[in-house]
């Protein structure tokens, strides 16, 4: 097998990544390692939010509906993490798939939990489709450069899981 070792070494040298051939992923795709697709949505409390305007902050985008039991269960944990880290640069977007829910039910539940982070309303499911959300809840952890670093499908996420993912990104330099 010595021949394999020699060929392997040659192959490794010729297939190395040249400085102008970056391994950074081009395009916006809802996948770890790619830039998070941008969106602009209206907020439950009025106004709008755009993901691209949050560059420089760590962002947690949590897709949810009020009728989804694991979404309901993890929401207090998300709120607790948000309160702990918002001054350090964490932004949470509670992205309600309103096309599958209702604005009233979403508002009622947010009030019940005492949510203080922005709740965005996806009225036509366009952002849900853009992020290929096939299960609820789904959470995207986005770093300060706007790159998706972790995707958690299903839930409920424990508070420790959310905290560890957020801390990992907050520790990184801007």
């Amino acid at each position: 097998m010595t021949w394999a070792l020699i060929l392997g070494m040659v192959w490794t040298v010729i297939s190395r990544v040249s400085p102008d051939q970056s391994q950074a992923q081009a395009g916006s795709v809802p996948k770890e390692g790619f830039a998070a697709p941008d969106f602009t949505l209206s907020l439950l409390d009025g106004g709008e939010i755009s993901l691209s305007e949050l560059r420089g902050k760590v962002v947690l985008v949590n897709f949810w509906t009020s009728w989804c039991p694991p979404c309901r269960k993890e929401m207090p944990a998300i709120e607790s993490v948000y309160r702990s880290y918002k001054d350090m640069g964490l932004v949470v977007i509670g992205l309600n798939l309103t096309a599958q829910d209702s604005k009233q039910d979403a508002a009622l539940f947010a009030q019940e939990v005492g949510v203080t982070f922005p709740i965005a309303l996806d009225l036509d499911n366009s952002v849900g489709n853009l992020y290929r959300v096939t299960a609820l809840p789904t959470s995207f952890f986005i770093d300060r450069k706007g790159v998706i670093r972790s995707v958690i499908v299903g839930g409920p996420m424990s508070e420790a899981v959310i905290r560890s993912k957020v801390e990992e990104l907050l520790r990184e330099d801007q």
Partner: protein
Amino acid sequence: MFPYLRLGPFLLQMPLFALLVGLWVGLTFIEKEAARLKLNKEKINNLVFYGLIGGIVFARLAYAAQYASVYISNPFSLFSLNTNTLLPEAGLIFGILIAGIYAYRQKLSFRNSMDVLAPGLAFFMIMIGVSHLLSGNAYGAPTRAPWAVYLWSDYRQPTQLYEIFFALVVFMIVLSRMIPANAPGLRFIQFIALSAIARVFIEAFRGDSAILIDGYRTAQVVGLTILVVCLTLLRNWEGKDEHESKIG
């Protein structure tokens, strides 16, 4: 790509399911090989079980250690089913260590035990490829090749298919005992060496390689290092006794 299957209120993670199938079928091959090499089937099963459980536990503990303050205040989160909170490298090292300790305490022949694991692990490697195909992970670099697949908004090398193909070839070689192995442990070393060769080759087509230094891909450098170790072991162990020729 087919990452999830909804079964009523449950969400089946297909990549994880593929790995479980790989484990189950792999264990069947291991049991057959244990019988062929006349090793205690129960002890080999325990070896795999302890290695696996130990690996998973340490993968979680190693992850938690990075965020000690978080897990100290929420210790029950250590028992989460979330696969995102595991450190696989630590799990692999500790899993092997725990299996080694078990083998030592049970006085299992180390090299024979490794040989028994080879066909099962070779099958598991195929299912790792299937798992990548289902999840869309381990994706290829953008290409204009006619056999490119459209994935993650670009035409890419179908590296998951390459992975499955080469794992199948390695599995067939290991299962059919195509390359002679004249000493205990050589069958396993052959499997590791062939897998390392496959990885060094496939990695060149990946679009998500970790880069070590000066453009060199980490997986290729690690693969070559493993290959050097395997070649050294093959030379040292070969011809010392007539292991498989005695078994027939």
